[in-house]
């Protein structure tokens, strides 16, 4: 049996174990209103996924949150490049990033709701969660570029584009990858949380909010399961994309 297959089987076994615990707990509680069983939740999720409205809702939420995440990744990289060049800018920006990281997400959501339109809040909140992580990690990557390789590029008079592609990018990509690993889930969860509090039209957050209001616990669980599954899929896709860019630059990380 290959190592990859063994790893997949082990992961499946762990998931099955916890689903079994959930099933047992649901059977013990015996009230669907408090804790629906995983089978009921899966059936509800399949029922929801059978309708076009589910996919339109999911697509809108993904659009909102991914807009925020993509903006934060681009802005984080840009700011990291700027603060790598300017110590003054870094000194100015560092406390702001620390403040953003330390502030409770609910405070940001409420403030953003006061200042911005409800449809804009989820992407802004997702961006705020991702930005400090991307900035910090990319900055670390830029700081960690081997100075001996930069000297090599200098004496061989390598063109800037080649230095970026062959030295800068491969040095930074592992850090960007690590940032995406930790920030994507965070951004996605914060974006959906913002949707729950701002209830924009056609959003997963609104459906979760409505499920809570009408005590539709099974539907609440089904939408939550959808959020978890989407988070996993988006994370995998984006990390694969970063990996592909890395291969083009010659990085194996």
């Amino acid at each position: 049996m290959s190592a990859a297959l063994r790893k997949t089987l082990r992961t499946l076994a762990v998931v099955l174990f916890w689903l079994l615990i959930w099933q047992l707990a649901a059977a013990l509680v015996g009230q669907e209103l408090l804790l629906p069983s995983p089978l009921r939740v899966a059936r509800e999720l399949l029922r929801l996924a059978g309708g076009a409205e589910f996919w339109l809702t999911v697509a809108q939420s993904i659009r909102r949150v991914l807009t925020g995440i993509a903006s934060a990744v681009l802005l984080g990289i840009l700011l990291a490049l700027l603060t790598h060049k300017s110590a003054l800018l870094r000194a100015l920006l560092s406390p702001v990033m620390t403040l953003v990281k330390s502030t409770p997400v609910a405070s940001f959501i409420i403030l953003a709701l006061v200042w911005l339109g409800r449809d804009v809040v989820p992407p802004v909140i997702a961006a705020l969660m991702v930005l400090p992580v991307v900035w910090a990690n990319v900055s670390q990557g830029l700081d960690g570029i081997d100075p001996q390789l930069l000297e090599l590029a200098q004496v061989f008079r390598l063109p800037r584009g080649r230095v970026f592609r062959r030295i800068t990018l491969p040095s930074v990509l592992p850090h960007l990858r690590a940032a995406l690993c930790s920030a994507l889930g965070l951004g996605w969860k914060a974006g959906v949380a913002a949707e729950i509090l701002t209830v924009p039209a056609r959003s997963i957050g609104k459906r979760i909010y409505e499920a809570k209001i009408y005590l539709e616990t099974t539907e609440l669980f089904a939408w939550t399961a959808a959020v978890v599954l989407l988070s996993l899929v988006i994370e995998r896709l984006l990390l694969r994309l970063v990996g592909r860019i890395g291969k083009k630059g010659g990085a194996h990380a």
Partner: protein
Amino acid sequence: MLELKDISLRLGDKQVLRGCGLRLDDGERIALMGPSGCGKTTLLRVALSLQKPDAGEVSCSWNRIGVVFQEPRLLGWCTAEENVNLVLSDKAETLPEAARWLDRLELGEARGLYPAELSGGMQQRLSIARALALRPELLVLDEPFKAMDEALAGRVGQTVAQSLPGAALLLVTHSEEEARAFGCRILRYENGRFV
């Protein structure tokens, strides 16, 4: 032409270079010799504009300068072939030329390997192949053969010498024999200068 005039440099408490001068013309070969830590590599760094001197002037008219540092300075994420191709065009069309340089340095079979998969001596030969592939007007070698056995160092030295028609050479070495094999004029360290 490379010219260093009255170079002085203090590193920490130590006055490493004191009014040091050097001139290297087209095709000329010079070897710098002296005890470890006397400032040979520091002078190379000043000549390559990697280290700013406290006083003095550096002027260089050459554009293509190939350098073999004491440490190989390879891109760990690129294969041997890609490391050489870095100084060519970094495009697929110059990969065969990179491969030819690897063949000359007896690294033909290692072209698809990453630096971490090579021995110390192979890594150093790879960095020599990279410097030669540039077809330099000036080749700077900082103790390039120290990770190689005598026989291999001899063969590599011969390849380097044959690949340098008309190029100037600035060599740092502890071996007078090595310096003579390259036909170098020897400058020895004396009180912060090479004379």
